[in-house]
């Protein structure tokens, strides 16, 4: 049984952009009618930033100074502005971690951090440009809304919500890959986007997180069409607590796919939130990739590929008394 398609798209757009390009485009559009929005970059915004072209008086490339950028955003927010800061996830979540704790957490400042290059989307650039630890860090800071949108439409919806709410946000996305948005109608993102739910409550349910987690889950669904699939966008403790309750109303066995280490990731959180359920993690192992390759190849080296997802589904199905999902 498939639940009714849920809301994702509010704008019909002919071109699907990567997560970070969709962010730039949407923020530029929103800033036209909200002059409190300020855009900060730390030398990694790339040339030709649309916000800079449209609103040069509110665009600041502060240079390679991530900590100063986040803290200055706190000052800007205190002065009545809505700062959006962006730099690669490893530099935002790790180098500027203390600033995130103080600005997003303790101060609860209306600052949004948009972090591309999350996971190993930096691939062959190497371990310095990988970020498999950001969810663990940010999820432990109270009060921060964490989002990992999949596709153009979700990113735009998340950015709109960050502007509307004025609450601290951390938004993780990839490099330049594009993903076709999940189907849906309506103005707001659902807590849980049920792409497909099986009638049998004992059926295994895939839970997809982020861009590559969702891509793999969709690929696994094609290989095992009867598999339920729930997609999550918001990953902070508060949202996950509510989402876990909804997940448990439909299923009791979950395979969570996420481009993050298992430790501190979403599967671990759901396992704690759903002690009566079975939660299996498909996530990055604990190695440090030291070889090149494209995004998919580096993920595979970490144990994050379609065979791993299908294997996890089989194991979960066997434990449920169903010999196979395929």
């Amino acid at each position, binding site marked *: 049984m498939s639940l009714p398609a849920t809301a994702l798209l509010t704008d019909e757009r002919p071109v699907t952009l990567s997560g970070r390009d969709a962010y730039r485009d949407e923020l530029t559009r929103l800033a036209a009618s909200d002059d409190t929005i*300020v855009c900060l970059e730390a030398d990694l915004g790339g040339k030709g930033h649309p916000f800079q072209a449209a609103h040069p008086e509110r665009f*600041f490339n*502060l240079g390679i*100074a991530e900590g*100063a950028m986040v*803290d*200055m955003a706190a000052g*800007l927010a205190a*002065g009545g502005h809505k700062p959006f800061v962006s730099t690669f996830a490893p530099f935002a979540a790790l180098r500027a971690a203390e600033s995130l704790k*103080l600005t997003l957490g303790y101060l609860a400042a209306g600052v949004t951090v948009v972090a591309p290059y999350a996971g190993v989307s930096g691939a062959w650039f190497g371990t310095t440009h990988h970020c498999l630890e950001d969810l663990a860090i940010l999820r432990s800071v109270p009060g921060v809304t964490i989002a990992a949108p999949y596709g153009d439409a979700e990113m735009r919806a998340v950015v709109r919500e960050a502007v509307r709410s004025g609450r601290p946000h951390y938004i993780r996305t990839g490099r330049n890959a594009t993903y076709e948005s999940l189907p849906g109608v309506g103005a707001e993102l659902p807590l849980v986007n049920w792409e497909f739910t099986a009638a049998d409550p004992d059926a295994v349910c895939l839970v997809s997180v982020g861009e590559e987690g969702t891509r793999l889950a969709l690929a696994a669904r094609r290989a095992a069409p009867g598999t339920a699939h729930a997609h999550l966008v918001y990953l902070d403790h508060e949202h996950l607590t509510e989402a876990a309750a909804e997940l448990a109303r439909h299923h009791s066995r979950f395979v969570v796919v996420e481009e993050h280490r298992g430790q501190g990731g979403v599967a671990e959180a759901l396992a704690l939130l759903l002690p009566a359920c079975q939660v299996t993690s498909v996530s990055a192992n604990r190695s440090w990739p030291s070889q090149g390759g494209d995004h998919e190849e580096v993920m595979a080296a970490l144990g994050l590929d379609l065979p791993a997802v299908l294997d996890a589904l089989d194991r979960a199905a066997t434990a449920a008394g169903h010999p196979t999902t395929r």
Partner: protein
Amino acid sequence: MTTAVREETRVGDDVTDLAALTDPVDLVATLTERAVRARRLVVDMAASPRGCHLGGSLSVLDILIAALHRAAGDDGTEVVLSKGHAAAGLYAALHVSGILPENPAPLYGLAGHPYTGHPGPKVPGVRFPTGSLGHGVPYAAGWALSQRIGGGNGLGIAVAGDGELQEGLVWETCQVAAAQELANFVLVVDRNGGQNDGMVADISPLPQLPQRFAAFGFDVVEVDGHDLRALTALLAEDRSTARRPLAVVADTVKGKGVRAVEGKPGCHYVTIDEARAAKWKRAIR
């Protein structure tokens, strides 16, 4: 820290309306009297069960009182104590300046009250949490940028310690502030020469400090950090036509006002008994 409460607010026995003081001599006399009362409050906090960062709180007091006076002008100026360990000095300065109505000294460090060893925004008049060193400098720079974008004339004043300048975040922000020509950003350095483990000069010295700021693209002024006349004059300057941020290197004495500890690195963190506190307070002039 906010300055929503103007200086005519009653402050203990002081009901002076500083806006009405047209004679600079009267203004300095009033601020000096505030500094004396603030120093006595800091000594009270050193006599609390938990003690306080006495030396740096006393060295920075005159700077804070002068900066708060500038901020009381209601032009959008914000003062950020970046050397947050001098919280006792900040609480005392806020109180004698009329921004913090209640006397923080009897409540300092106690459960149920916000007067912790490093300040946070639960304290009236404090906007940013500081104490992990370096962060207050970019907070103030961000505030200055916000003022500029919004067309305001207010300053973002960061008050940092000289030991604090060992933090990279400070220089990262100086780089940004100069590149952005953030002329309404003012960084005041409370150069008392000490840090937690001893003297700055012995641990990680900062030679040619004014020249360093100048090389970053700052306007630079050196001043006696206990000269309230000079400090208020400096901070009253109109910077609307300036192109460079301002660094004020203020030479101060660690433990200033308490002769027994002045200039001694051991006064960094002090816990004393009430009898000693009473003796020290009587001697503060």
